[in-house]
C-alpha cells in the first residue's frame, strides 16, 4: 500500500520533449512507472521513448485516461502549466521547477484547494512508491539504491534529504511505503500536514519520518494535528537549520513582520512543539532506526 501513487497511476509528462523531462521519464519507465504520454505545446505528434506527445493536456488526458501529471515547465511558465492540468481534470500534479515566484505558488495553491487537487511542490524532486510509481527525479536512475519497498512514509521539505532518509532506512533494514519531497519553498502548494493525514489513513504505512526546516507553519501544523489526534501513527522528525537562530537577523524592514511573525516558525520551537505533541525528534540520522524500534516498528523481511 502507499499514498497518492501506485502501480495503477497513469502519468502524463508536461515538457516530455525537454532534456530533464526526457531523462527523468526514461528512469521512471525503467523503474516500472506507467508513463503514458507527454505534452509540449507546439510539438504535438512527436514521440519520445515510444510515448506520444500532444499540444494540450486536455487532448492527451482524454485519449490516455491520465491520472497524474509531472510538470517540467521553467519557473515562470509553471503557473499556466498547472492551471492547464487542473482545467483538464487532473487531481495529482507534481511541479519540479525551483525559483517559481511565490505569488504564482500562492495562486496555484488557491486553485488546487478549490479543485480538491494535490499539487506536490513547487521545487520538489518528486514522489516515489518503490517498484510501483516514481514521479520526478527522485531516486535517480536506480531508485532501489535508495528506496526499497517497506512500511515507513517519508515527507521531506528537502529533495536531497528524502534520499538521505530513504538510504538511512534501507541501511537499517527498513523500506518505504511512499516517499514525498514536498518542496522547500515558502509556500508549498500542499502543506506537510496533508501528507501526514494520508499516511495516517494508509494501512501500508506503520510510521512516518518527516524532515523540516526553518520558517513556514508546516511543522507547527503537523504538531497541532498530532496533538488533536492522539491515535496517530509514530512520527519521527528531523529538523535542520537551528543554527540560523544564532546569527543576527538583517536590518529590519517595516513593522509588519514583527507584528505577525509566529515565533513557532523557528526550528527550536518546532522541535519543542513536535515533542510535546508526541513525535520523536532526533538530530542525528543514526538515531532513526533505534527510535523506530523503540516505537515498536521493526524491519520486515525483504519482499523478494
Amino acid at each position, binding site marked *: 500500500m502507499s499514498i497518492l501513487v501506485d502501480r495503477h497511476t497513469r502519468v502524463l509528462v508536461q515538457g516530455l520533449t525537454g532534456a530533464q523531462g526526457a531523462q527523468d521519464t526514461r528512469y521512471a519507465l525503467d523503474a516500472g512507472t506507467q508513463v503514458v504520454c507527454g505534452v509540449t505545446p507546439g510539438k504535438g505528434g512527436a514521440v519520445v521513448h515510444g510515448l506520444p506527445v500532444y499540444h494540450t493536456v486536455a487532448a492527451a488526458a482524454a485519449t490516455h485516461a491520465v491520472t497524474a501529471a509531472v510538470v517540467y515547465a521553467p519557473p*515562470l511558465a509553471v503557473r499556466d502549466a498547472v492551471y492547464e492540468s487542473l482545467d483538464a481534470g487532473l487531481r495529482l500534479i507534481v511541479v519540479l521547477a*525551483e*525559483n517559481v*515566484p*511565490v*505569488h504564482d505558488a*500562492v*495562486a496555484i*495553491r*488557491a*486553485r488546487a484547494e*478549490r479543485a480538491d487537487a494535490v499539487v506536490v511542490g513547487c521545487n520538489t*524532486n518528486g514522489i516515489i512508491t518503490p517498484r510501483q510509481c516514481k514521479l520526478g*527525479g*527522485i*531516486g*535517480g*536512475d*536506480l531508485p532501489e*539504491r*535508495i528506496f526499497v519497498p517497506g512500511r515507513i512514509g517519508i515527507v*521531506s*521539505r*528537502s*529533495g*536531497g*534529504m528524502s*534520499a*538521505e532518509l530513504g*538510504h*538511512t532506512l534501507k541501511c537499517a533494514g527498513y523500506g518505504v511505503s511512499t516517499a514525498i519531497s514536498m518542496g*522547500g519553498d*515558502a*509556500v508549498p502548494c500542499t502543506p506537510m500536514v496533508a501528507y501526514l493525514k494520508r499516511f495516517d489513513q494508509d494501512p501500508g504505512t506503520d510510521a512516518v519520518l518527516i524532515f523540516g*526546516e*526553518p*520558517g*513556514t507553519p508546516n511543522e507547527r501544523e503537523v504538531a497541532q494535528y498530532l496533538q488533536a489526534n492522539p491515535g496517530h501513527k509514530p512520527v519521527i522528525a528531523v529538523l*535542520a*537549520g*537551528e*543554527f540560523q537562530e544564532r*546569527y*543576527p*537577523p*538583517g*536590518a*529590519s*524592514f*517595516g*513593522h*509588519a*513582520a514583527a*507584528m*505577525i*511573525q509566529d515565533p513557532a516558525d523557528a526550528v527550536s520551537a518546532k522541535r519543542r512543539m513536535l515533542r510535546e505533541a508526541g513525535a520523536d525528534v532526533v*538530530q*542525528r*540520522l*543514526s538515531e532513526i532506526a533505534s527510535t523506530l524500534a523503540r516505537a515498536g516498528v521493526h524491519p520486515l523481511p525483504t519482499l523478494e
Partner: protein
Amino acid sequence: MLNLTEDLTKAFLSAQGLPVPPGTACDTPSAAHAAAQPLRGGAVVKALVAAGRRGKSGAVALVDDADAAQQAAQRMLGTAVAGLPVDRVYVEAREAIAHELYLSFVLDSYPPRMLLSCRGGVDIEQTHAQTPEAIVVMEVDPVHGVMPWDALAGWERAGAQARWLPGLGRLTAALWQAFVAADAQMLEINPLVVRADGTLVLVGAMLAVDDAALARHPAWRAFARSAAQRGGRIANDRERAVIDANERSPGAVFRYTELDGDIGLVVGGGGASLLQHDLMLAMGGAPANHLDATPGAGWQDKMGAVLDAILANPCVKGLLVSYNFLQLVRVDQRMQLIVDLLRARGIDPQRLPIVVRLFGPGEDEARRIAATLPGLHYMPPDSPIDAAVQRIVELTQ
C-alpha cells in the same frame, strides 16, 4: 527577498496610478538643495537605504527650505544606517498630516495577510503590543484578491471615519493590485496620510519583492545586484565574486555566506547543508561559511568560484565536502572536478584537512579519483552524514 529603496518603491507606486508625494533621489548636498527649492510647503530629507526605523535613527529630517535640505543631506551622506552605506538621500515634499493610518500586505506563508490600523506612525509596534485590537489582521484569498468593499469593511472595523471609507476602500484595493503586480512579499504604507480635506497620500512606503520574480521586473535588476546582501549585511569581496560567477551564466546558483568559523563547507543540497551546519555546531566545530546551491548549468565554473572564495578566506583550517546521497548527479564527475580544482590551486590535503562524503552513482570511480590526491579523507561506504561532520571537526581541532 529584495528590499527596495524608497525612490524605486515610490516610482513604482506612482506608475501604478497611486498617490505619492513628489520626490527626488540625490547623491550630493547641492542636488538636495536643487530638489528642495521648488517645494513650497517644506521638504523631508531621508537617507536612501533599504532599512526600517530610519525616523528613530536620525536618518529623516524635516526641513523648511532648500538650505536646510542641503545641510541635512551633507550630514547624512557618507554615514551608515543599519549597516547600510548612505550614498544618496531622498528629498520629498512635506505633507500636512491630519491623520496617520497604517496598512500592510504580507506574503510570508499561505494565505497572504492584510494589516490595517487607524493608529499609524513610528509607534505601530508598541500599539500592537499594548492594544492588539487596534490592528485588524485579515487573510486574503489569492483568487478573489482584495475588493474595495472587502477593504472598506476592514477599515470600518479598524475605526476609520465614515467619510474616509470610500477612498480607503478604493485605494486599498488598488494597493493590493500593485502588491501582486510587483511580485511583492511585503508592502507597508506607514503612515498612510489623511489630509485635512480627507484626501489620501502614501507618505511612508516600503516594498520587499521576490528575487525569483526579478525576470518580470527588469527595472529592479541593477539595484538587486548592487544591494546583494549575505547574512544581513552587504556582501564582502569573496561573496561578491561568487555572486558574479552566478550572474555570468543562467543555470546553477550558489549562495555563499561567510561566518566566523574555520571549517569551509562545500555542502548540499539545501536540507543537508542545514543539517550539517547544525551538527557541526553541536559537535563543537564552527563553519567558516554557509553554502546553499541550486543545481543547473555552469555548475563547474561556479563551484570553482566557491572553492576560490573558501580557500581565500584566511580563517579556513579545514574543508568538508559532503552531500546527501546523490540521485541524479554522478559522484565521479563531482569528485574529478573538486580534485582538479584543488590540484590547480596547489592545495595539499596533508596540510589542509579535507573530508569527503560523496555517495551515489559512480562512487567506486570517485574513490579511485580521490586516491590520486593523497591525504583526502573519503568516508567509508554507507557511513552516516553525522560521521563526516564529526571527522572534520576532529581533524581541525
